[in-house]
């Protein structure tokens, strides 16, 4: 008896070549698209590095320590901007870390009803969404005029101290630091909140079970358990603060003259780029790119350190 071949209903038992082609092609397409990340990153670095060559040759490492910025004589040193970048971001960090971590604790450790905690959490997230340039506008027209009497008082009371030795003229380092605080608070708060929420409930119970008060538990058990992620978040915020451009550019005063005083106009690398890059030519472009290269290296180092810290500390806990 011959087996009558049943009609083949599944017409695609054998995959047609076209389907295989699409399948394989799609894989290579995604690889190519993923490679864009690496390509763009290398291109950014090369563009900046290439452009900075002339200035690197002309000024060498002296560029980092001198503060002349003179398009007429063609002498450039980025010390003012480097100092401004580091000081503004570190000071902002010093203010923002306690505020941000404190807030994160306040909205994770059931001190107030859940509804209120959520409201505060949402507000912090929305603060992160406000564009830098709008904060800069607000800083120019609202914050700085409001702040000036305090800064003037600071100068008159503590004028002997180099950091407060000049009379505030309007834009300056101090308002720039404060606007940076506003800008990095959301990231610190959000990351700290996530980190604290990750601390297992069992650890909290353990702490309360031996008779801890709330804050003994927070300081001795909960914060240490969350510390790696919090420090990582703080480092990310530092990187953000160093690269932050618009709000700082609008309020820092963009002075190329060096001053120790926080009340005097200052500069940061990113502010300098925003202000001068469009109109610069010749060796000034190269000098700006040299400064940009320094900024890239700084943020790169900070971001790498953030990842390293998270790994290193999370091993201990």
């Amino acid at each position, binding site marked *: 008896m011959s087996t009558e071949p049943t009609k083949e209903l599944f017409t695609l038992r054998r995959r047609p070549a076209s389907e295989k082609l699409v*399948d394989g092609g799609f894989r290579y397409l995604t690889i190519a698209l993923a490679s864009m990340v690496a390509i*763009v990153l290398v291109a950014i670095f090369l563009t900046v590095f290439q452009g900075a060559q002339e200035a690197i040759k002309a000024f060498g490492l002296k560029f980092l320590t001198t503060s002349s910025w003179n398009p007429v004589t063609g002498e450039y040193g980025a010390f003012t901007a480097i100092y401004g970048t580091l000081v503004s971001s570190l000071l902002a960090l010093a203010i923002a870390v306690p505020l941000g971590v404190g807030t994160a604790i306040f909205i994770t450790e059931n001190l107030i009803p859940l509804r209120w905690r959520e409201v505060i959490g949402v507000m912090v*997230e929305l603060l992160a969404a406000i564009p830098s340039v709008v904060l800069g506008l607000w800083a120019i*027209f*609202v914050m700085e005029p409001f702040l000036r009497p305090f800064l003037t008082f600071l100068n008159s009371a503590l004028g002997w101290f180099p950091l407060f030795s000049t009379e505030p003229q309007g834009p300056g380092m101090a308002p720039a630091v404060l606007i940076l605080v506003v800008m990095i608070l959301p990231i610190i*708060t959000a990351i700290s909140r996530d980190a604290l929420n990750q601390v297992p409930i069992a650890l909290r119970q353990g702490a309360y079970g031996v008779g801890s008060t709330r804050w003994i538990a927070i300081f001795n058990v909960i914060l240490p358990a969350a510390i790696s992620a919090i420090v990582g978040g703080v480092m990310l915020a530092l990187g953000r603060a160093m690269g932050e451009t618009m709000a700082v*550019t609008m309020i820092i005063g963009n002075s190329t003259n060096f001053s120790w005083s926080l009340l005097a106009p200052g500069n940061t690398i990113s502010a300098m780029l925003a202000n001068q890059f469009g109109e610069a030519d010749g060796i000034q472009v190269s000098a700006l790119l040299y400064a940009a290269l320094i900024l890239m290296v700084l943020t790169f180092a900070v971001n790498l350190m953030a990842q390293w810290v998270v790994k290193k500390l999370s091993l201990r806990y």
Partner: protein
Amino acid sequence: MTVLTATQKPASLRFNPSLQRNKLDKLFTLVSAGFSVIVVLPLLLVLIYVLLQGGRLISFNLFTQLPPAPGLEGGGIGNAIIGTFVVTMVAALIAIPVGVGGGIYLAEYSRGGWFANLIRVGNDILAGVPSIICGVFVYGAIVATRVFFGQSYTAAAGGIALAVLMLPTVIKTTDEGLRLVPKALSMGAIGVGASKFVTIIRITLPSAFTPIATGIVLAIARAAGETAPLIFTALFSPFWPEGVFNPIATMSVLIFNFAIMPFEAQNELAWAASFVLVVLILAANLLARWLRRFAN
């Protein structure tokens, strides 16, 4: 049941507010509450100012007219509103396909090899590159080299700069979103003989739609408010947009340029543009929030 006499007992259970630990507890609680107020305060102040200062300038003309010449009154920001949409659109059209594709590679094809690690680390580094550097890069690669028909400053260049900025977020949300999809789901599709391509496009990607869409909306909202990458790529223009291969006005650059001008009319337009921008961005954020809730 007995009540033990006081002499046998160490202490009462009564809450004693004068104990140092209870005082400290109260102090720290108050301090953290104060910190929270300080953190929330700038948001409220900025919003109030933008709504008050910008809101009162909202009029029909604002959306339909060009900015006035320096020294003149009136005018609007019509060109900048369109410009922001154009530049952001260009950025999204580049960043979404590249980012989603790259994310698909990381989540679905890579097997944790060196290349995938390189891309993940590179993506984190790219996310940390300051936005002004993106501008510098696009200036050097596209504006200065005049690749677009000999044009230097173009809306397209601005869009590319924003796309560089958006890319890491899109890749990351796609990667994470796809990896949240239960493996059983794609196994089921592969088990009935679907190709990897069909599985990803028809099963995995749709399941991860909400987190990816949320991430993309947030990335677009962030890009729309960015200024630093645009000031020397898209530049600015006092005229209506003339296609993507010409300089273009955007709201963010308008705010920056007009804020530092010594003319009241320009300052007011900066506030008005802030109002429009903030409303748009907050709306996008609420949309993302709604999407996320929708997923849950």
